[in-house]
């Protein structure tokens, strides 16, 4: 899932300081699962902003709504009636949701309440870790299911490097060396010979290259 974390409340409050009424929109997708932009967080943010503004004797009216997903136009359409009389829309979705709302309502001031951080998963309740670098050309079959692109600080394909010490990466004693993990896993699988195959330089053209990427499934396109 996409992991996002809410911006400091002061930063969000500053964005809406000139508004009298705002629409606060949560997302029931990834940001609900990573506990930063779901129904609960949407209500809390709205409440914080209202209290803050009441203390400043400049009351703020809030309307809240949670979209099933903000990255699908059909779910954003549900906001059509709600955006009419608000001065701004605060989105608690990832950067995709903010842009989708901004595109649908060109005359509205759409603001991000979150910083979108990475693609990852939870390692325990309340802790999330990055696991995919979205390089567009998966090599997990070569590395025992451990991604060196995002989990190795240097993203090297033929590791480990000289900075690997006692299973940890030189950048931090809290960061496991991805290549140590890969070696250990391949050893337990009895596939160490696979690591003797040298990997050529990766073709990065499938990654962040040439502007935004697009995925197309011709067979499901309607019309």
């Amino acid at each position, binding site marked *: 899932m996409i992991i996002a974390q809410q911006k400091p409340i002061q930063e969000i409050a500053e964005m809406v300081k000139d508004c009298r009424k705002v629409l606060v929109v949560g997302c029931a997708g990834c940001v609900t699962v990573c506990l930063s932009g779901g129904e609960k967080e949407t209500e*809390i943010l709205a*409440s*914080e902003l209202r209290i803050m503004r*009441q203390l400043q004797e400049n009351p703020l009216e809030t309307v809240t709504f949670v979209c099933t997903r903000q990255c699908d136009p059909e779910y954003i359409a549900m906001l059509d009636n709600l955006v009419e009389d608000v001065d701004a829309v605060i989105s608690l979705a990832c950067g995709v949701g903010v842009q989708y709302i901004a595109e649908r309502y060109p005359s509205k001031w759409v603001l991000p309440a979150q910083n979108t951080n990475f693609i990852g998963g939870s390692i325990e309740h309340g802790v999330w870790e990055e696991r995919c670098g979205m390089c567009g050309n998966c090599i997990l079959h070569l590395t025992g299911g451990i991604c060196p692109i995002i989990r190795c600080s240097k993203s090297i394909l033929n590791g480990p490097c000289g900075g690997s010490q006692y299973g940890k990466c030189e950048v931090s004693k809290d960061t496991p060396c991805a290549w140590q993990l890969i070696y250990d896993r391949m050893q337990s699988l009895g596939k160490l010979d696979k690591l003797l195959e040298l990997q050529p330089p990766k073709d990065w053209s499938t990654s962040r290259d040439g502007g935004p990427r697009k995925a197309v499934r011709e067979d499901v396109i309607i019309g």
Partner: protein
Amino acid sequence: MAEEFEPKIVAFCCHYCAYSAADLAGSMRLQYPSNIRIVEMTCSGNIDHRVILNAFEEGADGVYVAGCMEGDCHFLKGNYRAKKRVNHVKQMLDEIGFDSRRLEFYNLSAAMGPRFAEIANEMTQRIKELGPSPLNKKEGDTK
């Protein structure tokens, strides 16, 4: 002469400890301020950020959550979670410029009737010193 400020304080009390302690305080004929409005909960661990914020927005001058003694939660960890959540809300309140001393968490057991009354007195005294919640200002108030 101005009337003395009588705060409205909402106490979210766990059924297994604080709520029973309030009962005991009543049976023992202990006096505690009538400023306390008790809300019975199945466990203090049920407390939610939104409920606390809502209580303040709806006019509470103070809020406290009372759960079991540490290690004695009927649901094992509810009181620890409640305490963490209350501390998080306190941090949020400070960030938005609302005095977090208006919110507190207490541990007590069902046998602590006198302690319940003591907490009620302590919180009432604290909120009286802090004055009315800035969210309860009436139109025309100058302060």
